[in-house]
């Protein structure tokens, strides 16, 4: 079983290391910013005190013209503890915080080639939202 609790500055090196191992990108300043008080940054801790995963999000209103929603910015689970419900526990804990903050919608952006994470969010009941993401290389 894992315990879910708010992330602290002392978790940052483990969070950063797990994320870098899974994505190949080191971004400690980004994770530091996630500790800002208006953000929800949660970690899942094994009973031995090791980091099993984390999730980060924030309630944002009128972003891209949409009324307030809880945005999930990032979620990662240590591959060693996958398929044990860590991701779902993190997702549900963040959703509960969003509900407490008064929002009724949860939203995220996913790489459409990343079938693992797409399937995870689908399994939580998420479906395609009202927006389409567009982008381009700047000339």
């Amino acid at each position: 079983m894992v315990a879910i609790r708010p992330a602290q500055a002392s978790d940052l090196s483990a969070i950063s290391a797990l994320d870098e191992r899974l994505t190949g990108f080191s971004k400690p300043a980004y994770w530091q910013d996630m500790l800002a008080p208006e953000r929800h940054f949660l970690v899942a801790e094994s009973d031995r005190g090791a980091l099993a995963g984390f999730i980060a999000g924030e309630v944002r209103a009128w972003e891209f013209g949409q009324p307030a929603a809880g945005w999930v910015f990032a979620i990662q689970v240590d591959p060693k503890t996958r398929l044990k419900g860590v991701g779902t526990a993190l997702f549900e804990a963040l959703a509960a915080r969003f509900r407490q903050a008064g929002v009724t919608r949860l939203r995220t952006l996913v790489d459409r080639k990343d079938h693992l994470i797409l399937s995870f969010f689908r399994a939580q009941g998420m479906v395609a939202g009202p927006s389409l993401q567009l982008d381009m290389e700047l000339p």
Partner: protein
Amino acid sequence: MKLQTATRLGLYATLELARDPERTLSAADLAERFGVSSHHLAKVLRTLATAGLVQGGRGAAGGYRFIGNRRRTTLMDIVALFEPAPGSRAKEPGEDTEIGGALQRVLTEIDEIAEATLRSVSLETMLKHPM
């Protein structure tokens, strides 16, 4: 999005059988449930059986049951049994022109989104959250 009849029947049959893997249904049972041809459905069930998703069919009245993995099987796995693979289509006339190439990029974008959607929905998700 338009699916071929066989694809739609394959999805109907797989999802109906996956709802309760203990249960056995014949092609005729399934055909009646969805109001479709049982001859056509029998052929679809044989394809699903070859793919290891369902098992059964001893004789004309033999029933089928789901033997796949609900969490691991996605809608795309079933669609791919009946629809041509996205990369395998023949080149259309005019595709090498500038306009043909630009049109093809738009169509490819649509295909990629459709495929990502089908690949992200497992049978388990589909049966747990009917949309």
